[in-house]
């Protein structure tokens, strides 16, 4: 139980994927103009991240058994592309309304650093042990990997939703045209990062 809480706090707050580890910045800046699409993107990414961890973690063990772990990047990106493609097809078939709502964001998830990032992160046992407070790297297992994927995705969702709320307000203010768009969004992200920095001090 303590381990579970540790994973939640670490993945969502202390090592937040977006504002602390800088993973998934493109959708964070690109799809955060309004609340609804931000939430949709966040949940879609969370789902893909969890599923990716579930598949790539055992797959890496399989690659390591045959001593071809150097192929991990190629294998992982193909797994992610396949997952995204399958979700797209499943949504189209079973829930056309959700598909229409998320349609444009789905293909973007393949090239989201957060997804490949989490797949690469959970196989690095030493790094994970220090991130989620395990006493030894050997204790890392698939359950932790999937949980970390889920909560890192929720951390991404949290950050992008906060961002969308701030941007909706800022959009109404008169801002210099040189600051409009990306620069002002990054200054807002700077404030969010400062807020999240507090968790690292705990």
């Amino acid at each position: 139980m303590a381990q579970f809480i540790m994973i939640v706090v670490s993945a969502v707050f202390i090592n937040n994927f977006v504002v602390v580890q800088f993973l998934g910045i493109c959708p964070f800046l690109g799809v955060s103009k309004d609340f609804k699409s931000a939430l949709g993107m966040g949940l879609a990414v969370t789902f893909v991240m969890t599923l990716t961890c579930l598949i790539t973690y055992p797959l890496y063990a399989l690659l390591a058994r045959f001593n071809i772990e150097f192929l991990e990047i190629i294998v992982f990106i193909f797994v992610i592309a396949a997952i995204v493609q399958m979700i797209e097809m499943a949504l189209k078939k079973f829930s056309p309304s959700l598909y229409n709502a998320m349609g444009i964001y789905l293909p973007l998830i393949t090239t989201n650093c957060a997804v490949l990032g989490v797949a690469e992160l959970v196989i690095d046992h030493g790094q994970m042990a220090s991130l989620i407070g395990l006493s030894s790297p050997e204790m890392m297992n698939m359950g932790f990997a999937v949980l970390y994927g889920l909560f890192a995705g929720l951390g991404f969702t949290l950050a992008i939703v906060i961002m969308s709320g701030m941007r909706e307000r800022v959009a109404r203010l008169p801002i210099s045209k040189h600051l409009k768009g990306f620069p002002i969004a990054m200054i807002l992200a700077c404030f969010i990062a400062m807020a999240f920095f507090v968790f690292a001090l705990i």
Partner: protein
Amino acid sequence: MKNSFKKVALGGVITSNPTLKLVLGTCPTLALTTAAMNGLGMGAAVTFVLICSNLLISLLRKVIPNQVRIPAFVLIIATFVTIVRLALDKFLPPIYESLGLYLPLIVVNCIILGRAESFASKNGVGWSILDGLFMGIGFTLALTLMGAVREFLGYGTLFNVQIMNFQIGFFSSSAGAFFTYAVFIAVFSLVSSLISNKRKRKAFAKTQTPVQDCAKEVE
């Protein structure tokens, strides 16, 4: 010929600088600009992958069917990233360590896929290599410059050499990364609009003078 070379070179480094103008590949930019040296390392790795992937994609642009071009591009890029990763691990372990997680993430760097899609898949091999080279240089320059500013303000050092004895923790933190990037984009946009305004005014003045002369003659 010369004009086009100038266009590609200037485009990559200045007018459509991938980092400051197009705002692509933001993840490594924010994460690795804590030190100027990281910028050089990341820039070199990305430039290598860009040149190689542009070369191969341009060679294969008539062979790859349009429907599966994105997976094909990603496969090509992932192959070169694997090569870079293995080579760095073997020959330059310190750089391999400092780039860490962001090295495999070059695969999903939007700059590379973006250039493959918008340039290499439409242009010849020579131009594609040049485009890759100059886009890579533009990325490296922006990253190194931002890294230098953040390293100097955050630690008082430049390329790991102590220059001043002060530290502003803000600039080495993640909040400082966002802030520095925002300032860089804003200043870049300001300077480029000032320059283009000046050019426009000059061109305007040139077209205006004869008209004014005519007006005087009429008077």
